[in-house]
């Protein structure tokens, strides 16, 4: 079996976003970059298949030289081999997915994991796009996954419930929190990952279909009203919500 996790590097969740000088992207100064939190579930899933079914495991990332850091993180978690499709270009999800699909089509993976979305652009597109480019099934927002022979049975989160979805491998699975518990790499793994080689590839597709024209910060509301400090404030709050805000 061959299991591949596609991962990306993003600003961590504590990042306070500032608009960069180009007016279209974030100011990277002072930002800590990490593996996309949802991609940790993807990496963990692949590593578990290595442990259970002796799967050969890979991670692939599209990004700058610095994205090697997230590949090393995946190594430390137990992934065998990493590939970086190295580009400085600003690519949208369509272009990222095209590049991934071009590499993946030569690899004959049985199962390809993604995080359900990256926490920077929140696009929730790449995994499913890749599946369509490869002409294979996909299941997104997966909170539980079972593999029986050549078939995967996944629980997919929907509004107010879940769908039980079935497909045959090869398949793309986009992981939601809850699918597994990503392991913390140990120090030995982290040290060993530092010197492991990472294969570099050239991008094959650099033409985005969407263009970000402008980035801005959401308007800050005026300072709110402090209604009170004790249970008596409850009466006043209910009145305000009904008569002033008119939301009840």
């Amino acid at each position: 079996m061959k299991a591949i996790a596609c991962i990306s590097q993003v600003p961590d969740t504590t990042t306070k976003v500032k608009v960069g000088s180009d007016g279209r992207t974030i100011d990277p100064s002072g930002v800590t970059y990490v593996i996309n939190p949802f991609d940790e579930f993807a990496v963990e899933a692949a590593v578990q298949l290595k442990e259970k079914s002796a799967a050969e495991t890979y991670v692939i990332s599209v990004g700058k030289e610095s994205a090697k850091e997230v590949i090393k993180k995946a190594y430390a978690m137990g992934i065998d081999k990493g590939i970086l499709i190295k580009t400085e270009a600003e690519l949208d999800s369509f272009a990222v997915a095209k590049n991934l699909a071009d590499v993946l089509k030569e690899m004959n993976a049985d199962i390809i994991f993604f995080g359900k979305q990256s926490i920077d652009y929140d696009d929730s597109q790449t995994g499913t796009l890749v599946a369509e480019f490869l002409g294979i099934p996909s299941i997104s927002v997966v909170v539980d996954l079972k593999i029986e022979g050549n078939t995967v049975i996944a629980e997919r989160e929907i509004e107010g419930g879940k769908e039980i979805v079935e497909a045959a491998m090869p398949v793309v699975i986009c992981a939601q929190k809850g699918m597994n518990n990503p392991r913390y790499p140990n120090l030995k793994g982290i040290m060993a990952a530092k010197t492991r080689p990472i294969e570099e590839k050239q991008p094959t597709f650099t033409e985005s279909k969407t263009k970000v024209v402008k980035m801005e910060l959401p308007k800050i509301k005026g300072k709110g009203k402090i209604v009170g400090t004790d249970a008596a404030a409850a009466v006043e709050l209910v009145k305000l919500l009904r008569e002033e805000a008119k939301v009840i």
Partner: protein
Amino acid sequence: MAKILAFVESRDNKIKNAGFELASTAVKYAAELGAESEILLIGSDVSTVAGSLGAYGVKKVLVAEDARLDKYSTTAYAKIVAETAKQRGCDTVFISATQMGKDLAPRVSAKLDAGLAVDCIDLKVEGGELLATRPVYAGKALIQVKVESPVKLYSLRPNVFKILKAEATADVEKLQLNLTDADFAVKTKEVVVSNEKLDVSEATIIVSGGRGLKGPENYKLVEDLAAVLGAAVGASRAVVDAGWRPHGEQVGQTGKTVSPNLYIACGISGAIQHLAGMSSAKCIVAINKDKDAPIFQIADYGIVGDVFEILPALTEEFKKVLAN
């Protein structure tokens, strides 16, 4: 000339609010762009509800019906949406940014070689083209996006675009489908509905709890208030990671991004990743004993006090008022 195709989602042959929002939006922008709009319904028996779209100004409804389409299949639905767009000569496709729509839209995008702006919260017509505004970083920032491919896709965030009533008579046309078993390579075997629980992503009111509740056993205070308001129960990442609450309730950058009419944050200090996920709520109430908690900076109304004292009082007061 532009022509808009809007895929209006249905489950069990029923259209939810997000669908009516999408239909209204398609009609509205078609008028602004001087274009036509057509609505597409997919399901096993959706012609029964097709006519109801007339009340939103819809003049044309295309119906894709097949017993096998009773549940969502990413492969089959994507094929129908993409082929319909092609056959009807539509260059703009609207899809709701629901769990179904977010799964469907990328496949349609690949099939139509079309750029996709996801989760849009505003669309503006500029020079005869649509300019989309959408949140990124879970709402910490907004971007304006232009789709530059000949065919353009937009997914629209639910509970943001208005439902607009306008009398029209919807002409309903059944589509000829060519579906093979291969089109159902991905199959939904079962839909499990958690009846007792309203989902944060669909709720108009959310009551959320955080670490200030001190333990999972005290979450009952949040649930009681939510029950009185008919609200969904939400949670901060801290309490989900601590195992107090299921991950499906998590609001924030690594949970769900929500925009309800009313969000009541109880014992939540307001970590930046949490604020990102809920700051677009129309009205925010914060209850926290720390007056310097960041949540108060975005709250419309705050009570600086003890959640254990205030929540029961608030629940009682709502009970009293809503009973009248």
